[in-house]
């Protein structure tokens, strides 16, 4: 009887946002108003208005203190067992996320399958975004985080990447946006890049083609799409890759590390602006070659950028340790030195499997 809690006395937290302002942590929680969720009418409960959720926040010198302060202003007990997304503010991420992960993993009520996201700007603003498609923003955030990578970045994965020697964590970046340009229209959320960490600190956010290439390196890309510039000023073609798979082969060369990245994928032509006919073999190969070139270029530039950041989300260090083609000499040196001088070779083996139903472009 003593720890009995009726379901109407619980505030289910569906999402938390953690920011850091100077030395203060600010924790915001999104709590659905179950009374407004379309249950039966009649009886009390819930607040006025048609919003199905609300966000409350509090600050404290530790995250726990902020949580406790939040609890004092809530008539229901906070229950985090249904929290499926945790958003970390950009500033906080740059300062280091370690304190967040202590409280997230110490309390057994928190689930390790909560999704980790980094927000562009303040995390609290993400929670306050009134999304159109889902019942509450947390649901939208969760769905977005799940489709951002092919294996979602759960708390448990982020933790193991962080704690393991030889790899660094990464997480999708979410940002608030508007449906019309210039800050007009309805508010919305979108996945806006990939946060690259070194240890527990956010180093950079990769966007666009760097994000795509980074995801391919991590084997986390869900149908990455490339817009390929075709030769002879023939225009562009959009090609979607299915089942892209990157494999890594570490080798030692004159005391330096070299890494060969082999990318295998199958492509589908989604759009073709050129006059290349996707029926003719030789023209088909021109498109395929251009695609391979683009992939190679993007991946190499992404790896170089990662090297500069000294961040290692793809686990090059881990692969080097495990590889039989490298010697212990390499590992005696400081990893950052080895990583910085690493030679990168990218071997894309991408074939186009489907040209679509059309083989000629209609405009020509």
């Amino acid at each position: 009887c003593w720890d009995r809690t009726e379901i109407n006395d619980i505030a289910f937290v569906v999402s938390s946002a953690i920011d850091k302002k100077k030395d203060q942590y600010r924790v915001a929680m999104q709590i659905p108003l179950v009374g407004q969720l379309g249950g039966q009418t009649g009886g009390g409960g819930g607040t006025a208005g048609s919003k199905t959720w609300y966000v409350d926040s509090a600050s404290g010198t530790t995250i726990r203190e902020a949580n406790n302060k939040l609890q004092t202003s809530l008539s229901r007990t906070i229950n985090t067992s249904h929290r499926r997304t945790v958003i970390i503010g950009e500033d906080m991420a740059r300062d280091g996320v370690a304190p967040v992960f202590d409280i997230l993993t110490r309390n057994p009520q928190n689930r390790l399958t909560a999704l980790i996201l980094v927000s562009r700007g303040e995390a609290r603003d993400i929670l306050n975004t009134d999304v159109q498609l889902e019942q509450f923003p947390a649901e939208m955030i969760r769905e977005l985080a799940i489709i951002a990578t092919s294996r979602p970045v759960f708390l448990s994965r982020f933790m193991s990447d962080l704690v393991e020697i030889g790899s660094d964590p990464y997480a999708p970046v979410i940002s608030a946006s508007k449906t019309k340009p210039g800050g007009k229209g309805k508010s919305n959320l979108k996945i806006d890049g990939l946060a690259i960490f070194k240890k527990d600190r956010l180093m950079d956010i990769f966007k666009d083609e760097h994000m795509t290439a980074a995801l391919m390196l991590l084997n986390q890309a869900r149908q990455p799409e490339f817009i390929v510039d075709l030769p002879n000023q023939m225009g562009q073609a959009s090609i979607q890759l299915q089942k892209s798979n990157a494999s890594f082969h570490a080798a030692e060369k004159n005391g330096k590390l070299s890494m060969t990245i082999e990318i295998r994928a199958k492509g589908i032509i989604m759009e073709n602006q050129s006059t290349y006919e996707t029926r003719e073999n030789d023209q088909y190969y021109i498109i395929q070659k251009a695609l391979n070139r683009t992939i190679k270029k993007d991946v190499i530039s992404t790896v170089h950028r990662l090297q500069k950041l000294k961040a290692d989300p793809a686990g090059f260090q881990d692969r080097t340790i495990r590889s039989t083609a490298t010697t212990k000499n390499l590992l005696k040196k400081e990893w950052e030195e080895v990583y910085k001088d690493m030679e990168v070779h990218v071997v894309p083996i991408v074939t186009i499997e489907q040209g679509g139903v059309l083989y000629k472009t209609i405009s020509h």
Partner: protein
Amino acid sequence: MNKRDKALQLIKELEDNQDRPISPNLKENLENLTLLTEGCSDIVFRQFDFGNGLCGFIVYIEGIVKSEHIQDHALRPFLMHLTDQIDEHEEALQNTLSISSVALETSMSKVAASIIEGNAVLFADGHSKGLILNIKGGQRRSIEEPITESTIRGSREGFTESLRVNTALVRFRVKTFQLKMISFKIGTKTKTDVVLAYIDGLADPKVIDKAKKRIKKIKIDAVLESGYIEEFIEDDTYSPFPQLQYTERPDTVAAQLLEGRFAIFTDNTPFVLTGPITFWQLMQASEDYYERYLMSNLIRWLRYMFLFVALYLPAIYVAVITYHQDLMPTNLMFSVASAREPIPFPAIIEALIMEISFEALREAGVRLPKTIGQTVSILGALVIGTAAVEAGIVSAPMVIIVSLTGIASFTIPRFNLAISIRMLRFPLMFLASIFGIFGIMLGTIILVLHLCKLQSFGIPYLSGISPFKRDEVKDIFVRAPWWTMTRRPGTYSRGNGQKGAKREDPKDEENNI
């Protein structure tokens, strides 16, 4: 001493078997019997005088004899032969009367007993013997379809209130003299006929001895239903689980006998007790054996699944929403939470309100006359289901849980098990509301311990699984095809367990041609 006291004294004397011989004086006999039957308007004395010095009377109870037989088979042949040799030539007498069973009796108590059992007794002047004419009969319900155990496929015959009709229905099915039927008479007032039936050579003699002893020990003045006997002979009266099965179906009784069990027929009730039983047997419906085995298995698994639903669903629901909110999927949790938002009661109270009103509704449905029954159940369903939810007194998920539990409890084929399961879910709900899932586990452990301890005539209640018996599993969680079940279950039956051989593939015969 007035007439009534005298009559009571006489009845007591006869009941105590203080014998009083039949007087050769016809008048004295008539006086005695009139005194004995003082106030019984259904007794008939038919006096006759044949003229040649032979006079006498026939006495019987109207309604429980075939009175037309007296005329056709007793009086008329008697009249025709005008014999005065009742004493001297019993054989001649037996030949004269065209009644199947005739006996001579000298003791008044026995004569009185045979009258009350539905025989007619003929007294003749000058003879100190009563002639008992077996013309038992009277109107009983005819054989009808068993109402409590109707099946889609299978025999449509059900037992009736008449004991001999019932034993005959089993005899029709089991045509062997190994089928023994031991008679008992129980009840000092009702003198109810009780028959213990078993197949000699299949049944365990120890179990049969035990059953005989227990039946003999019954001391009661009246047995109006087999339930009286059940409580006298069952192993543990305080257990919520039934330790004897009852059935209205002759085919079920026949099947039980063939597995080495016994059956107890009781006069005046269509319900026959069978035993010893196991828990698993109560989950088997007779249709399981008549329908093809794949369907039978599917339905049997469904039944086991719903057994758990009937026992645990409300308890688990209460436990999860008051203690283990983290166990439910998030969106389901929100649906339940939003439905529970306007409810003023804690979950356990809400569950109790609904469960108790469901039980009341079910009970009312049984008691009400058929014509109003339907109206009341619709009204009840509407009031409890829709109105209570709309008024915000109970939540919709709880209504779903309760109705699912109700439906689940009716999938259990044996009513006596169904009712004990329904009963047991209340303590489980209380445990769930006090200790959560831990409480449910606690209840389950106690329940399983009790089941393991329970016996029915010395046979462990969970026999087959605990103690594990490989040759019985074929009919516990699955029902194997008939031709693979070549051995009888060893728990009950003794002797040669073989009951058939594996079939030869019917296709082989064709191929050989």
